[in-house]
Structures are given as structure tokens and as C-alpha cells.
């Protein structure tokens, strides 16, 4: 076991653990934000630089500090390492810089974006963003492409985290999309304009930290905070069948994977569960889903509902589940 101190909190972790994973074990405020790292996807991380931290002591053997800030998601812990995240002014400044970089070309179309309310970039800007922008240049725009009837790609919102590429590569038999071009003109696209069509492609939506990939069957139907997220399950031959059903009254508006407190899905689900089973009779409703406390979704008090009952969000009446 290795000993590491993050923001003055000591924790013992196994060898090979990254700083970010160690911070997540501690939990709370010391956890650096992560826009590209996804623990369920191999080789993810290192790209967005929002999880930068300061290593003030390299290890017990070599106590020298690391001169540059390091990406906590891809830096393994050394025994005796001392890390500063919230305590380091340098880290906070660098993170502000990263958020600014991510926002200069991100459209401010949150009012019409389906991701609003569950968007990692919104949370990050709330924590570290500046109130004013210094750019007067027009934002980057991409020509829209159609990637099929189930998933909507809005490339203008993309922050190039690579999660969807890795998800497609690791979950599906054949990846039909990838990163094209270079630098700030780089874009996610399908090869020769094909539609993305395979059983697990819908997970691209769940891993996307922003509104670049959204559910076409749910598009513009409701803001997420008006819906009640309920744990639901069904017998499925392709996946675990454990999902979150986002409901309005008795109607299921959309299905997503179950996300943990760090916004990562617990288990990837198949497209049949996600896109085709929108009838309440397809599902066994287990009860309200716990959404992370700071989320705007939590503010609609859906958690007051008792297991086995559904509240109509407007009338506020409880009716027994059939």
C-alpha cells in the first residue's frame, strides 16, 4: 500500500492508483474535476487538463516537487507523495485558464441545449469560469452532419475529450466514427458520412460530458430537471437492463445508464433498452435515483417520493404505481 496526502488528507492506496482515483476515494472537495477521464474507458484521460494538480513532494524516496502541474487522472501515486489541489493557488489559476480555453469556442446555447442541467462543462464553468469573455472573435462552427436517426451530433459543442471514440472502440464491434483533422479544426465525424448503427452506440450519449451528442428520441421534449429520474430494470439479453428512466407522470421521456456521483455510468446499456422501450410496462420501477447533490436536477424534490409511487411533478399528487 502506498501513502499519499492530498490537500492535507492522508489515504492509503494500492500501487498503480492515479492521483485522481485516490482523491475520489477521499471524496468531497478534494476531487479534481475531470472532463475527459472516464474510469470505465481504457486509455481515457490526460487531454482536457482540467484535473491538473500540484505535486509538492514527489515521493518519500525523491522528495523533490514536480516542476510542472500534472494531470491527476494519468499520474500514478508514489509512496509518500504530497499533492495539492484546492490548496494551491497555482492549480486554481491554471484550471481557470483551462476552463477559459474550453469555453472560447463553446457556443453559449445552454438555453436550447438538451444537456443543460447535467452538463459537466456547465458545472466546471460555474466553479472556475470567468464572468466575462475577452474574445471578440466569432466562435468555431462546423458544418452539421447526420450520424443517424438515434444520436444527434452537434460538433460546435464538442470539447474533444475522445470519450465517445473510446466508447465506440471498446464497446462495439466496429467503430464507425473518429477524430478527423488537427488542432482547433479537429472534429468528430463518421467515416464517409455513414450512420452510426450498432447495439451499444447509444452509450456515446452518456459518456459525452457536454451536449455534443444527445438523444434524438428525447430531443427538445423536456428540460431534464422537470423529469423524475427513476431506477428501472428489465430482463435484457444484451445488457444488464439496469437503467434510469426519466419520467414525467407515467410517461417515460428517455432512458439513460445509471450514473455514479462522478457522472460515470455504472453499466453500459444497449440501444434497445435506451431507444425502444419507452413504455412504462416494459420496466420494473425500483425507486427514485440519487442524482449528485449539486445538480439542478435534485432541486425538484423528486427524492421525497416513496418507493413504488410516482409523483406527478405539476400536480404534486401521489398515486400508487400500477
Amino acid at each position, binding site marked *: 500500500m502506498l501513502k499519499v496526502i492530498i490537500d492535507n488528507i492522508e489515504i492509503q492506496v494500492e500501487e498503480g492508483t492515479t492521483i485522481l482515483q485516490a482523491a475520489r476515494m477521499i471524496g468531497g472537495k478534494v476531487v479534481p474535476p475531470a472532463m475527459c477521464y472516464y474510469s470505465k474507458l481504457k486509455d481515457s484521460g490526460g487531454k482536457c*487538463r482540467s484535473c491538473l494538480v500540484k505535486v509538492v513532494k514527489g515521493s518519500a524516496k525523491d522528495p523533490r516537487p514536480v516542476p510542472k502541474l500534472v494531470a491527476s487522472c494519468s499520474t500514478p501515486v508514489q509512496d509518500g507523495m504530497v499533492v495539492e489541489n484546492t490548496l494551491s493557488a497555482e492549480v486554481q489559476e491554471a484550471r481557470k*485558464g*483551462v476552463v*477559459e480555453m474550453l469555453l472560447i469556442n463553446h457556443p453559449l446555447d445552454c438555453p436550447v441545449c438538451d444537456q443543460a442541467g447535467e452538463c459537466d462543462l456547465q458545472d466546471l464553468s460555474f466553479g472556475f469560469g470567468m464572468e466575462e469573455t*475577452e474574445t471578440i472573435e466569432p466562435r468555431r462552427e462546423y458544418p452539421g452532419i447526420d450520424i443517424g436517426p438515434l444520436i444527434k451530433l452537434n460538433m460546435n459543442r464538442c470539447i*474533444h475529450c475522445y470519450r465517445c471514440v473510446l466508447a465506440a472502440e471498446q464497446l462495439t464491434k466496429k467503430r464507425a466514427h473518429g477524430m478527423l483533422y*488537427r*488542432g482547433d*479544426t479537429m472534429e468528430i465525424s463518421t467515416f464517409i458520412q455513414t450512420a452510426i448503427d450498432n447495439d451499444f452506440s447509444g452509450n456515446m450519449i452518456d459518456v459525452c460530458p457536454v451536449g455534443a451528442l444527445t438523444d434524438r428520441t428525447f430531443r427538445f421534449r423536456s428540460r431534464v430537471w422537470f423529469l423524475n429520474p427513476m431506477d428501472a430494470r428489465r430482463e435484457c439479453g444484451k445488457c444488464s437492463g439496469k437503467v434510469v428512466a426519466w419520467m414525467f407522470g407515467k410517461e417515460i421521456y428517455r432512458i439513460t445508464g445509471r450514473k455514479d456521483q462522478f457522472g460515470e455510468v455504472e453499466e453500459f446499456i444497449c440501444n434497445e433498452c435506451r431507444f425502444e422501450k419507452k413504455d412504462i410496462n416494459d420496466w420494473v420501477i425500483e425507486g427514485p435515483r440519487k442524482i449528485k447533490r449539486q445538480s439542478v436536477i435534485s432541486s425538484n424534490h423528486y427524492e421525497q417520493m416513496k418507493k413504488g409511487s410516482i409523483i406527478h411533478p405539476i400536480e404534486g399528487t401521489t398515486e400508487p404505481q400500477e
Partner: protein
Amino acid sequence: MGRAILLDKVNIPGIQTFEVYRAHGGYTSAAKGLREMTPAQVQQEVIKSGLRGRGGAGFPTGLKWSFLDRKSDKPRYLVCNADESEPGTFKDRYLMEHLPHLLIEGLTLSSYALGVKTCYIYIRGEFRYLVGILENAIREAKKNNYLGEKILGTDFSLEIYVHPGAGAYICGEETALLESLEGKRGNPRIKPPFPAYKGLYNCPTVVNNVETLATVGPVITMGGDAYAKLGMGKSTGTKLMSACGNINKPGVYEVELGLPVEEFIYSDEYCGGIKNGRMLKAVIPGGSSVPILPADLILNTARGDSRLLTYESLAEGGFESGSMLGSGGFIVYDEDACIVRNTWNLTRFYRHESCGQCSPCREGTGWMEKVLYRIEHGKGRMSDIDLLVRVAKNIEGNTICPLGDAAAWPVASAIRHFRKEFEEHIKC
């Protein structure tokens, strides 16, 4: 010219061919190394020589070799980085074009020292015409048993392959190079693990610059100690400088490290002074990514010592008043050159060449380019100057690979030393 070690035979007609190269003493160091020395001894000579990486970072070559994971049972690789794409640097191209066998000889010796059986030359896509020259040299060397199976009757065998890139500057970064060599998109890898442990195809790998590897031959011929006597202090030996810009004699020159910069610019032996009798304004001494220095600071350090062509002297004063030797791409500007336009041009390059993987570099290079475009085209705001400084600071050190630093330094240094010029651009 001072002591030439690499380019001493460059003017001999037909030196590109095996016969002529051999007749002028070529491949003697390979024969000496392979027949009379153990691999450890060859490496020891390189360590003793104090040879430092000539690609830009100046990391001691012997030390880099000693990091190679020798306990692993996987094959080891040597990769020659010939992806020379930095604006202002053209020394490797010259070396490969005129002395291909010198590189092959260096690769043979280095592979022998490192226990490598397969070696790749990753060459810049635009250098397509050099691929034929190198492959021809490899063929000739093979025919004469200086490459291939059981070289010179010893137990050592080596294959060298030439692999052209597709024209991306970022593939000069060693891990992006390895990705590209594996047939993937040329994105730099996240380190650790370092190539010495997990490099090409996840095997222990050493990546060295063309000039570095070509120098190994002469180091073995003359001995590490003798090589270390050349140069000055920790900057041992000779270095190829590619001089360009507003000078009378642009070209590739071999200098013994320690030569005063003033002599290099004004001596007829080297650059031959500023063109048309104009005044020197500024110099980028080590390829486009190192900080630019104004005339007074390139000729003398801030403390008043005369500036020398060594790793240490050029770096003296840090980023406040110093620069770097880098890859030796020596770009000279006369009094008529516009620093703002030049800086904009460089940011245009870095914006185009950023791989786009990490946020600060992807967005920051584009942002700096747009702001500098505005300033250059008469639409700048006074606040833009501090904005540029801030953006450069936010990129520097926060990226996966050094391309972010390389993009930020020219902008930061140009504003540091020529702020007035930026202000004048904005005012009028």
C-alpha cells in the same frame, strides 16, 4: 572553418556512395566498434563524450541510453527522429542528403550499443526525395555486409527501415512519432510511461535525432574523451547550425560549441554579416520555438558577457533575457523585419500543427493566432497585448507535450522584448 567532425568530407564528390565514403575512411568506426569493443564500451564512450541530444532539448545522449529497460525480454528498438520540421531548422536534411552513410554508420554503432536488432528512420513526409537516398545507402551497406545478418562476421545483425511520415510537425515529438510509426494518428502519448520502458509497440525504445546518431561514429573514432575536449564546459563537441534570414551566407555550418554568437553572425566563415549592410535587429537562435532575442541580448548576456553558442550561454538569464540553443535553427532579422508579423506567422504555424488533443494547446494556439492576426491587420486593442501574455502563460507547462511551450514562448518573448512594436501596431 573550425574543427569539422561531421561535415569534414561533405565536399568530396560522390561521398553519398558507399565506395567513396569507404575510401575516405568511412565505416572504420563501425568496424572498430563492432570488432574491438563490447556494446557497454561503445555506450561508455558516448557517455564520456558528453554528447547531448541535438534535436532541441539537449538531453545527454549517454544518460538517455542508460534509461533503456534492459531487463525486459521484449525486443528493443532504436528510432531515428528525422522528422525535422521546425521553421528555421534544416541541418538534418543537409546531413542526410549529403552524408547518408554517416547516419547509417551511427545507427549501426548505436544499435550495437543498445542491443537493438531493428532500427527505424522516421523521416518527414516532405523529405520524400531523401527516402531514396537513404534506402540506396542502406542497400549499399547491406551489400557490403555493414548491415543485415552477421555484420562484419560478428554475431550482431541489424535491419534499418525508412518510414516517411505524412507531413505533421507534431510527429517530431517522440511519442507522437512512435504512434505515427505504429500506423496511428500522430497524437503525443501521455507520459509516464516513457519510451525507454514502453515505446514502439510497447517495447523499450530509444528515440534520437539524426545529428545525434550521426555523431556517434566520430565519437567512437576519436574516443569519448577526445570528443569531450572539444567545445566548452558541458556543451561538448560540434553542432550543426542552420543559418537563415537576412544574412549574406545562409546555409548549414558546423561550429565548435563555444563560438561567440557575434563571430558566427559577422564572420565571413559563417553567416557573413547582415545582408545589404543593414543593422541586426533580432535573432531566434535555436529554431522557431525558442524565445527571440533582440540584438543587444543575443550578442551579450544581460550581465555583459559575450554570448556564446553553447547550451548554457544561450540560456543564461532564463526567459527574462535568455533563449535556448534548441535545434540550431538560427534565424536572423535585420532592422526592416516586423516582429509582429513574424510572430503572427509563427503562431499560424503552431495553430496549424497542434494535434488538438489537449485543450490549452488546441484552443490557445488558435486564439493567439486570431489575436495576432487582428493586431497585424490594424484591428488590435491595447488590452490584446496583456491578453496574449496571459494566454501564452496558460498554455505553457499545462499541455501533454512540449508543442504548447513551443507555441507560447515565441509570443511571450516577442512581447517581452518588443512590446513597443506591438503598441505601435495597435495605435496606428
